[in-house]
């Protein structure tokens, strides 16, 4: 065979199959999805338990995200030339045949849109304008990112990045996420710093502050309605009380008083690993003062009233501590990931009623993955969790819990729900995982065939459509069950 012919064929082969090299004007698509069929025989809604405090596995529903990246000027290797790209992300939790809304695009939103430019003016610095969401790692077993800033912010940021130091500074507006159609500007500023003094240790920290100015005349700016009692607010009886106390002046409900609102978040991070069997350990801490709510609406004698609540909702704080360690127990044979989470939500304005703002929870999740072959794995996961309501009963252990309330007395005018302030949950999950790309707890795509079981002291502690009333005319009757079993045929992939 002549040499020309010998090379002609491979050359034609190469030209036929070779995509173009990276060039300006090139578009790329990345993303993520998970989808599952999780039938049970107990009336569940496709999840083993209520939320990912018990581990994300089997407790999260289908989800999809697609991100488009368009290189206006591609970043070139061996060069410090400027580069810039445009990013657009669409994501949501609706999938045909897998969620109640059957893939409706109404469940999707454009969550990210930004332009990024690097090596423009300042070396090693990348500017980003648009949405700014940033985080240092995550707790993979929980799908939580405590060290996250600017999730709700649109604005501009600059990231200075070297091999061992990474500094992000940003400023913008969080009003559209926090207040939606009641928009008012919420100035936001903050940053993240990450340093890696040695290969085996990494430290990080940062935070952000949000400020919503007092704006006289703007109905959506922060205001307070004077002399509102928390118990009336919780019961929706503020106007009724005012009318009762001012029988002849009911029509002069107090005018709201403008004020400003502040909130903040601080995050910390310690990472270490790369020695012995420890691949890496992430420890995160975050403290957040939630942004105050604006107003609630009450209807009294056919008329609507707004009760402005800035000072009644400005002391809600969330503390989160989380840790996750990845260990190679037997290299290429058995891996372990173990995570723990502690959360404390406090609301100094409300010591009366149970709510998501007044509770503590603690949880641990451990996952083992054994590699039967490179691509066929066995997965086992267990979790234990306790959630305690600070302000009294919040959970129902029994179908007739109204008769088992505090001191056995139905709390008709009170704020308690159910018959216990503590929910205890245990879960176990096991099954076969097919990983075409090989070993690794977090290697994706994964095709999983799993069985999960949950025990909770709460009655029917999973999404369901049970009729819970104990009214004698409840034609469906009541069900009491602590165990929940689920089979799951699911897949998860990043691409």
């Amino acid at each position: 065979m002549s040499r020309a012919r010998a090379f002609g064929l491979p050359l034609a082969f190469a030209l036929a199959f070779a995509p173009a090299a990276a060039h300006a004007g090139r578009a790329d698509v990345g993303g993520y999805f998970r989808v599952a069929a999780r039938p049970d025989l107990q009336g569940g809604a496709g999840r083993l338990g209520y939320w990912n405090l018990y581990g994300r596995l089997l407790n999260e529903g289908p989800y999809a995200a697609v991100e488009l990246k368009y290189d206006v000027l591609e970043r070139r290797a061996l060069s410090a030339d400027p580069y810039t790209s445009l990013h657009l992300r669409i994501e949501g939790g609706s999938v045909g045949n897998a969620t109640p809304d059957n893939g409706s695009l109404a469940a999707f939103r454009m969550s990210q849109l930004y332009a990024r430019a690097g090596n423009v003016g300042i070396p090693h610095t990348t500017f980003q304008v648009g949405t700014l969401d940033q985080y240092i790692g995550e707790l993979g077993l929980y799908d939580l990112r405590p060290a996250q800033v600017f999730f709700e912010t649109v604005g501009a940021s600059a990231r200075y990045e070297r091999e061992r130091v990474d500094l992000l500074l940003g400023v913008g507006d969080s009003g559209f996420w926090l207040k939606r159609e009641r928009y008012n500007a919420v100035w936001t500023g903050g940053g993240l710093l990450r340093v890696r003094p040695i290969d085996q240790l990494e430290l990080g920290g940062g935070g952000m502050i949000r400020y919503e100015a007092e704006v006289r005349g703007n109905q959506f700016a922060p205001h307070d309605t004077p002399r509102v009692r928390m118990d009336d607010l919780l019961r929706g009886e503020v106007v009724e009380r005012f009318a009762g106390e001012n029988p002849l002046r009911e029509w002069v409900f107090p005018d709201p008083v403008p004020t400003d609102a502040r909130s903040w978040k601080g995050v910390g991070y310690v990472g270490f690993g790369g020695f012995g069997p420890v691949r890496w350990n992430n420890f995160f801490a975050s403290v957040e003062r939630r942004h105050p709510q604006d107003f609630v609406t009450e209807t009294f004698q056919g008329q609507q009233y707004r009760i402005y609540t800035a000072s009644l909702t400005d002391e809600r704080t969330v503390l989160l501590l989380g840790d996750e360690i990845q260990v190679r127990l037997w290299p290429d044979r058995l891996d372990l990931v173990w995570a723990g989470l502690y959360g404390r939500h406090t609301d100094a304005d409300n010591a009366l009623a149970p709510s998501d703002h007044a509770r503590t929870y603690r949880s641990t999740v451990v996952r083992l993955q054994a590699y039967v072959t490179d691509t066929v794995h066995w997965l086992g996961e267990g979790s234990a969790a306790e959630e305690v309501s600070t302000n009294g009963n919040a959970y129902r252990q029994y179908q007739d819990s109204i008769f088992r309330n505090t001191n056995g007395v139905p709390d008709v005018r009170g704020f308690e729900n159910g018959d216990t302030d503590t929910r205890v949950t245990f879960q176990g999950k096991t099954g076969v995982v097919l990983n075409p790309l090989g070993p690794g707890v977090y290697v994706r795509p994964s095709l999983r065939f799993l069985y999960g079981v949950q025990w909770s002291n709460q009655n029917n502690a999973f999404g369901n459509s049970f009729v819970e009333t104990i009214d004698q005319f409840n034609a469906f009757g009541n069900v009491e069950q602590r165990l929940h079993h689920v089979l799951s045929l699911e897949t998860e992939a990043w691409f």
Partner: protein
Amino acid sequence: MRRPPVVLGLFAALACAPKAPPALAPARPALLVAALEPLADAPPRGLPPRAEARLVEALRGVGLDVAPVPAADFGPALHTRRTPEQRTAWLQSQAGDGAPLLVVVAAEAHFYSQIEGRLRWTVSVELLLAAPSASDRPVVHHFEVPVFLQFLHEKEDAAVDAAAPVIARQVASFAGAWSGGL
């Protein structure tokens, strides 16, 4: 007329006949340059050791024995020689008379974005295959591998490491097919 069935039978017999084994690559090991090109004005460095080992193993799996060139030998040269023709010419000049096959795998890793808790990187690979003779043009094949890392401290080396199985598979498949035609 009996000729057509005879011709058809001959075709069928030829179609079912065992194929000749692919031609073996030349006995002398091919030179392998496995480079990671940084996103900075700096010389290329070697691929991470595990990625390079995987590549060597995959190439040997398709009958292509390779001898990796140390990064110190190719780094400065590849920094200034960016086109396939320049790189091929330089490698051919280094290999001297009776030059073996030349295989250059140049990878670069670009951060894409944070997606659902992971860090998406795109590893772009340029595979360059050159024949012993300086008169032949190199064959160039580009491909990309998206990978997802978990930690911010994982950078280009980790991205290439994560992409190594796909890189090795692609390179071996392409190089095997190419060298089989020699």
